[in-house]
């Protein structure tokens, strides 16, 4: 990979107002440029807000829409990952994050694992994605997984196996669980454990780009993180505040981590594939 400074725009999107959110994106994109970032990551559904329910259909856009074009146009100064409801040509509605680089969309990830339990109801309104792919950028190979995708370790096996050196997790994680004297929300602790453990075990840079604000009584706590391939926290955002955080990612640190912990080198992909194939066959019998 190339050395790159990446930022996380921990924002509070306006629910259902895509134009207002594009304006907010442009403001944070300018700040990322001023901070000399090469890439800025926005949270899940950053262009629409999260608790959309029936609004999903109203705010959905295709990738040629004016809102998406406005982001595309400023991706020459800084690459961008932003989230929206993707209205596909066959009228499916998918939770998407697009990677913008030099005026082009180089990748769109559709959330594979829709959350339809607890307080979440995504599967009622949206269709799931059907693939997980790493992709090439001018900074190297990266992957985007959206929120719940990360709660399935198989997503990470695929993204890392596909060669991603930087794996992003745009999220809209609500605060819940304030039991005891943990001084930390239950949901934020789980996320921080995930981000650090994954980065260390798959030896990649990781981002957890969470949002802030309130929607229908739900609080999104922020606490976004950028984590190094040794599990070290390189940057961390405060709780509940809109802000831009940034960290410098170097190929040197990745090289050192891959030498000291050569898990990727030793990963037996063929074995995994063969065993999974066997499991699939046995399950279908």
């Amino acid at each position, binding site marked *: 990979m190339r050395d790159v400074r990446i930022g996380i725009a921990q924002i509070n999107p306006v629910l259902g107002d895509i134009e207002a959110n594009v304006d907010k994106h442009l403001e944070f994109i300018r700040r990322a440029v001023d901070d000399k970032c090469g890439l800025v990551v926005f949270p899940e559904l950053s262009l629409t807000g999260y608790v959309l329910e029936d609004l999903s*259909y109203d705010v959905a856009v295709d990738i040629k829409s004016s809102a998406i074009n406005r982001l595309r146009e400023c991706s020459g100064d800084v690459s961008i990952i932003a989230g929206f409801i993707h209205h596909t040509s066959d009228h499916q509605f998918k939770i998407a994050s697009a990677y913008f680089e030099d005026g082009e969309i180089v990748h769109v990830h559709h959330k594979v694992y829709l959350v339809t339990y*607890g*307080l979440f109801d995504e599967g009622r309104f949206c269709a799931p994605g059907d693939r997980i792919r790493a992709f090439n950028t001018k900074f190297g190979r990266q992957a985007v997984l959206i929120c719940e995708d990360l709660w399935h370790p198989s997503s990470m096996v695929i993204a890392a196996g596909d060669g991603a050196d930087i794996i992003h997790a745009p999220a809209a994680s*609500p605060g*819940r*669980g*304030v039991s005891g004297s943990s001084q930390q929300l239950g949901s934020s602790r789980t996320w921080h454990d995930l981000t650090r453990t994954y980065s260390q075990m798959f030896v990649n840079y990781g981002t957890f780009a969470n949002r802030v604000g309130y929607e229908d*009584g*739900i*609080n999104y706590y922020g606490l976004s993180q950028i984590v190094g391939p040794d599990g070290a926290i390189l940057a961390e955002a405060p709780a509940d505040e809109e802000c831009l955080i940034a960290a410098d990612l170097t190929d040197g640190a990745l090289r050192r981590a891959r030498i000291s912990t050569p898990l990727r080198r030793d990963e037996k992909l063929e074995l995994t594939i063969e065993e999974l194939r066997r499991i699939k066959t046995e399950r279908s019998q």
Partner: protein
Amino acid sequence: MNPFSSAQSGFIDRIDDNLCLDAKLAIGVLEGFIRNEVNKVGFSKAVVALSGGIDSALSLAVAARAMGPGNVLALLMPYRTSSPASRNDAEELVEKLGVQSKIIDVSNMVDAYVNEYELSNIRKGNVMARARMIALYDHSEEFTGLVVGTSNKTELLLGYGTIYGDMASAINPLGDLYKTQVRQISEAMELPESIVNKAPSADLWEGQQDEDEIGFTYRDIDRLLYLLIDERWSVPEITSSGIELQFVDQLISRVRRNQFKRRPPIIAKISERTIEREFRYPRDWGV
């Protein structure tokens, strides 16, 4: 202003056809609904606030069919400026249906508060609606009857009602019927013509008329709401069919602004299992 003047008549006819219900079928569902919901919670009686307008008349008539007229109490709750004609219509309906009734003049109750302050018509109207709610729920206790609501789908969508006032009820048979459908079913139930044909009015102040206040006729509002809500038409689709954009924008903005009236108060999420979010039993769980 006729917001449909540029629309093709075939298009409007199709909407009107779809808005037109099989009245007999609908009445059967509503009757069963009231009987089932009232009995389920261990009640056998119902209470309805009767203004003399078409909505409360229909609720009362269906409740009378469902529970038997002797098990239904109509509460007439005039204020001193309320329309005497509506009062007469209400009394005529009570007689026709054979339900029990009681007249509670809310003038003193309302004035005790209103005279303390300089209230605008809107505030005064809200106080009246909430005073009636107090009397209604009090009589629900005394009569041991469930409060049957009278808010129709058009009013609920437009937010044309007082939250915790006339919008308060235990069960609502009319909430999925547009105003024009209420009229259609009322005709089919042969409610008095004076009630069916009178200009709709909340009667919160003298001369008040819904359609003047809202700015459009219920007929036009219902046609548009039907397209937007029931058929999920997009705004460009609707305007390209010849319906005025300004009308569409105004109505959508009203529906959106009043979303809060249609939902319970939002609860600040703290725990892993929050009421209404992850704690989601059906209402019938409680019976």
